């Protein structure tokens, strides 16, 4: 099965493992991820201002490129996923923006939100299926207690992201079960790690990341997994708790027995 794939800037630099283990795992699962040519950075954050349009064009270009190929667009980084989905929603709801984008891009076939954006986790749940995934596991986690850290961007705003229940999500917990781990549910799993505030107010990021990690630790976690490079950075670097934090794709590749491959 073929999908367009949007890695985003961080997966080419500081978060290479997130990308690499996803590609290896996809291959093992019979999924063909075709990286979009000439994709541009999504900007990292979706601007909530309706009249901020230029900064959303790179996302529209990626969405339109996938449409041209007739493929769904797979994302991996939580931030890219959030931006692409919200911009895609704008391209069906924000008339002023739609007009301006069409006027500016002058594409023969104007883009109107046709592309389906799916996160790699949704690919596992909805295309592969967690039951099928479980059958492919060769190195199960052996009941390891793993805490899913959703953070903000995968789930919210839920009426646009539509991945899962924003207050009581299960997708990553179901993933953990499928690869043989025991999910740890804790109250801070969908609260903010501090995000980009780490850049100018490190102490603030330390406070927020520590709260998340303490909450996971208190509920018995031996390890935390995430889909977001900035969450991983904040928890690893700014969280004052010694718990390993990994990308979910690393555990996936390990479970599928492809982690050592290149």
């Amino acid at each position, binding site marked *: 099965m073929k999908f367009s794939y949007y890695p*985003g*800037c*961080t997966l080419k*630099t*500081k*978060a290479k493992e997130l990308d690499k283990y996803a590609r290896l795992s996809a291959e093992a699962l019979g999924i063909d991820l075709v990286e979009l040519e000439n994709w541009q*950075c999504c*900007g*990292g*954050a*979706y*601007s*909530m*201002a*309706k*009249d*901020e349009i230029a*900064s959303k064009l790179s996302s529209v270009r990626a969405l339109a490129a996938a449409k041209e190929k007739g493929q769904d667009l797979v994302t991996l*980084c939580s*931030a890219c996923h959030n931006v692409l989905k919200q911009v895609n929603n704008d391209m069906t709801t*924000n008339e002023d923006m739609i007009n301006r984008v069409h006027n500016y891009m002058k594409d023969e076939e104007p883009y109107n939100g046709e592309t389906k954006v799916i996160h790699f986790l949704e690919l596992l749940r909805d295309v592969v299926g967690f039951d099928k995934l479980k059958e492919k596991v060769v190195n199960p986690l052996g009941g390891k207690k793993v805490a899913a850290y959703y953070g*903000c*961007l995968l*789930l*919210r*705003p*839920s009426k646009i992201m539509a991945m899962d229940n*924003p207050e009581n999500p299960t997708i990553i917990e179901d993933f953990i079960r499928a690869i043989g781990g025991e999910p740890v549910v804790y109250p801070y799993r969908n*609260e*903010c790690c*501090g*995000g*980009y*505030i*780490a*850049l*100018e*107010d490190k102490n*603030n990021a330390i406070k*927020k990341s520590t709260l998340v990690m303490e909450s996971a630790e208190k509920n018995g976690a031996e390890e935390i997994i995430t889909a*977001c*490079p*900035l969450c*991983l*950075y904040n928890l*690893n*670097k700014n969280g004052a708790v010694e718990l390993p934090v990994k990308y979910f794709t690393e555990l996936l590749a390990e479970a599928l027995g492809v982690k050592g491959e290149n």
Partner: protein
Amino acid sequence: MSFSNNLKENVIRSAGVDPKKCMKCGKCTATCPNGNEMEYKPHQFVYMVEKGDIEPLMNTDSIYKCLSCFACVERCPRGVEPAKFIEAVRVAKIRKQGENHLKADMIPDLLDEDLPQQAIVTAFRKYSK
């Protein structure tokens, strides 16, 4: 029409949401992970925008404290989506000449070897034009 009325209308248009729907329950501020660091809190943005009291919001650091976590957007029971007002005020501010909150030459001092690009591009998106 006075300048402040224009500004109010611009901010509301840019936010794309209606401050009059707010029932002043305070849930946005209660759920905001960074509310403690804000001089003006999310519910005050809503109230003050509705009043047209925009200048103090333009001049407070609180506009740089929103983490874009979408918690208030998700959890507001009235669909007011307060962060959109914070964003609209911030955008109105940084669009003015010389009002960038983050400048490129400040970046090298803020970096460490693990900081993901995502943090830098996001900060630029939020702080600068």
